[in-house]
């Protein structure tokens, strides 16, 4: 018989101990005895929304003793019907991963280090810098003398989760500042 080692083993199944119990017609024990119970059994189900793209799939978060134990797609939500993509499916790790950011991080101009900052400090910095840039860069009139009130040096990007009304409010705010470069993150 012309066959290599792999094929021989596959045909005969006699690699290590010769005959297995299965080949002799002895039934195997149910595997139940060897597997742990279901890890989400009895856990509280909390419906949440995937934070990534604008599809906003619903996810069931399984919580036990205040701790997230598992996540999976919500089959009752008509948009994703329980399915998730690779990013949505990774919600458990995204939550528990040690690289997850939980506080604002600040890197000063020219610095190589990130520092942890409070939200109060961060909001104040954003407001101060937005005002400063707008005060210096706002273009009131173009070359032809037409009033434009345009701020070219700032860009605004919004979350993919903003609904129509939230987008309208955000839009009015950025137009009020004179910002023309506006986008959202609905793709990924």
């Amino acid at each position: 018989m012309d066959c290599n080692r792999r094929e021989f083993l596959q045909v005969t199944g006699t690699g290590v101990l010769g005959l297995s119990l299965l080949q002799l017609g002895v039934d195997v024990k149910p595997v139940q005895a060897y597997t742990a119970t279901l890890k989400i059994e009895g856990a509280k189900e909390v419906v949440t929304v995937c934070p990534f793209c604008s599809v906003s799939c619903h996810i069931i978060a399984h919580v036990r003793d205040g701790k997230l134990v598992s996540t999976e797609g919500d089959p009752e939500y008509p948009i994703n019907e329980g399915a998730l993509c690779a990013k949505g499916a990774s919600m458990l790790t995204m939550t528990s991963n040690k690289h997850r950011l939980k506080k604002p991080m600040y890197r000063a101009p020219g610095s190589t280090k990130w520092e942890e900052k409070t939200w109060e400090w961060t909001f104040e910095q954003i407001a101060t810098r937005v005002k400063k840039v707008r005060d210096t860069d706002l273009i009131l009139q173009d070359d032809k003398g037409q009033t434009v009130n345009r701020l070219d040096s700032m860009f605004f990007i919004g979350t993919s989760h903003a609904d129509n009304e939230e987008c309208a409010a955000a839009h009015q705010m950025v137009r009020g500042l004179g910002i023309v470069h506006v986008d959202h993150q609905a793709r990924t």
Partner: protein
Amino acid sequence: MPKAFFIDTSRCTACRGCQIACKEWNELPPNQTRQRGSHQNPPDLNPNNYKVVRFSEHLDAGTVKWLFFPDQCRHCQDPPCISVGGSLVDGAMIHDAQTGAVVYTDKTSQISEKDFEEIRESCPYNIPRRNPKTGVISKCTMCFDRISHGLLPACVKACPTGAMNFGEYPDMLALANSRLADVKKTCPKANLADADTVNVIYLLIDEPKKYHDFAVAQNDTGIDRKTFLAHLFAPVRRSAESLSLD
């Protein structure tokens, strides 16, 4: 009646939701990765990935074709790995008669590296992997804990395109055949990979070799394993059956 997967690669977009859902459910740690010029990541199955979506590209009459293959244990109806290693350590490698699931437990850590090599070589699909640190041999478990509680396997639950399906074997085979008839209208080379011998039926739109070396069983000896065994062990099996108490 065994359970079965039907994996319709004609519907797979290689989003890898199944691969990640598997990793998340089994809480498997990350792998060190690097850019290898392919979206396939990790490059192969390993103790941290029971499932990997394989990307294969080739030229077909001047056009680039990109084929996706969500690779996993086939849960063979007559698993060679169990024949080879099933009796090494009690409760380490189990073939569950009710679901057809082939499940390895933590007890596989008691199996030697040499025996593992035999087990891996016996697999027609090159699936089992051994963790060199713990010695545990692992692969897809058919989400045994989930299916025992009436839940779908994590990969099937996550799939957004309907490529991954799970159910009773005859239902999955019927679904596979009806999809095959449809897909053949546009892809004449479409075929079902080893549908009669495994519980994971793949619908492929091109030759199996173009997907992956082990897309179908690597066994070209011209003799069917089942036939061979039937001849070899028929007398023993008969006597064993007559002794069986159940």
